């Protein structure tokens, strides 16, 4: 807990403790969190330090699809469901991901590696259907590309995983 408090306080110190810095702070706190989300304790500290009500801080954190108040996987797969992606087969892309990961949109895999969710337009309509995985965008997706994408992340993680 203390560790969390210190981390957040130093983020706030760096960015500033005025209410207009809320979004920047939320983004950074989420980025530094291992589970890709803003925890309740973190939000309480932020609300206290910025002197804004917790309800308002939560209102902002729950408004933006890039922010999350629920635990997420290390890789957050955001499927664009704006019109151009939807028209170009976004619905199928969603199904490919659901099949290969064994979860539905809004869920996280048991190993905590992936979560699947929708997002609004990510600005790559020329590559529709597209998804965003953490900070990277992948476009022109089809079944093969989706499978390759998930495979490559899984392999990369196995290499890094020394826990056994």
């Amino acid at each position, binding site marked *: 807990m203390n560790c969390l408090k210190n981390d957040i306080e130093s983020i706030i110190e760096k960015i500033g403790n005025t209410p207009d810095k809320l979004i920047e702070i939320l983004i950074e706190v989420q980025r530094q969190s291992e589970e890709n989300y803003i925890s309740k304790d973190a*939000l309480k500290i932020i609300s206290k330090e910025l002197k804004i009500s917790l*309800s308002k*801080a939560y209102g902002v954190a*729950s*408004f933006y*699809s890039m922010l999350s108040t629920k635990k997420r996987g290390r890789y957050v797969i955001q499927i664009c469901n704006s019109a151009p992606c939807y028209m170009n087969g976004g619905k199928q892309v969603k199904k490919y991901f659901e099949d290969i990961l064994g979860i539905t949109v809004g869920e996280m895999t048991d190993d905590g590696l992936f979560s699947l969710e929708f997002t609004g337009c990510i600005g790559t309509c020329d590559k529709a259907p597209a998804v965003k995985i953490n900070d990277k965008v992948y476009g022109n997706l089809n079944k093969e590309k989706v499978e390759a994408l998930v495979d490559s992340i899984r392999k990369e993680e196995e290499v890094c995983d020394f826990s056994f």
Partner: protein
Amino acid sequence: MDNVNITINGVAVSVKKGTTILEACKKININIPTLCYHPDQELKGNCRVCVVEVEGQPRLQPSCCTPVTQGMVIKTNSKRVREARKAIVELILAAHNCNCLTCIRNNNCELQNISRELGIDSVRFDNVEEILPLDNSNPSIVRDGSKCIKCGRCVEVCSKVQGVGAIYNINRSHDMRIAPAYEEGLNNVPCVYCGQCINVCPVGAIYEKNDINNVWKVLDDKSKHVVVQVAPAVRVSIGEEFGFDAGSIVTGKIVSLLKRIGFDRVFDTNFTADLTIIEEGNELLHRIKNGGKLPMMTSCSPGWIRYVEYFYPELLENVSTCKSPQQMFGALAKSYYAEKYKINPENIVVVSIMPCTAKKAECIRDEMNDSGYQDVDFVLTTRELVRMVHQSGININKIEEKDFDDPFGITTGAAAIFGATGGVMEAALRTVYEIVTGNELKNINLTTVRGIDGIKEAEIPVGDLNVKVAVANGLNNAKIILDMINEGKADYHFIEIMACPGGCIGGGGQPIPGNIEVKKQRMDGIYNVDKSKLIRKSHKNPAIIKLYEEYLGEPLGHKSHKLLHTHYAKRELYEV
């Protein structure tokens, strides 16, 4: 002054620059339906019900937040406008719990009125009403998300007027709703239970916790001796619900109907308001003489008490230890009154009629048991009493007037003004002046502390001392003064704070609507009660003098301390 010339429905109108279309229409008696618009609030433009056609603009414009411009040609009643408004309201109704007959706001609902006015006879859209759990987690306020139309009025009053921020818009788009963080119950967030959100809600999405049935139950129980007290601000507002003008004084009628409803004794909270003045005035003098914590702040408003406990716990020692008049009454009813009339206090039930929702939470505070029992058992808001009157079938318009019962029936003008912002201050100064100087206060109307302004200041010479006072109503105004104290910039001796804008006359339990115009009329009513009283200073109240002689001894004495004073506790805002 710059004027602009516009045309509304073919009629030429000249209005001040900056006027909105809605205001301009009002000027020529054109009514435009509104939902998110509230005369005391900022313009929102959320609901779109007020749209009108403006020549040359492709889209319909929301009239509440569109200022007029020179030469503007406006149509408020075209086919296009009528159809758009209908569609908008139908969309709201498709997501609304339309069980009007069992809704607390049946017959006093802005959505119901608009549906009728627009002639909506069916809803073309599928019902997408969300079944959300009712939040009745706390003793004061119930929230029903299925009725919420997301107008945002409650959020504004909670954040901006009260500076509390217990609720906010959460999530986005279709999933947006108004709730506390993490959709907790109001009991788990720093809600002060002031009920201002109820007063501005256009529909039945927020209302007070219903205690009517608890009261009927004790009235039906013949082993119980049920006494009732009526707060100062109720007598000038309840008439509104029965066709009287706001500010009409219906005290005698209230007493009469409470007796007919079946209460054994009907008492006046004004009596313990007088008592509060004696105790609080003496406490102030004691603090000044003995170097006690100053400025001293009033403690009558339970919403304010919760606020200071949550947000400014470092200032709790500045708050007067006096209980509120409601709680002083309860403590005396189950001690002094019980002894005097030889009634077993175990069988006494104390009911309060209050303009307030926070009083419901105040009466169940752990420390409010100094009589040996829970001092006040049930609190009904002004609105709940109205419902009880309707249920009882009594015609208040025709009913005879009666006086309050002894020994808590004789009251002064000083007590009457407790119901308005500045009233407690004025009442206290009337008494403090005479105690300190021993001279009669000639001009007892301290008009500088009267009126609807958020913050008022005055300096009153009392003997050798210039007493500096401040008065705040609405918690965001209180916050300004509290910050000044913390920064060492406030050299006041005495500060009156009432949680609700306007004071208790604008309380969260008062008739709806209670906008600023209505509040001003209620305030006039309060000062008319004061003017009509023969005795207008608390320390001259013969019944109070008798109470000290017979029972309490002296102000701040041993018995007073046991029964009439209390303490407060820091509340954690957000535990991490």
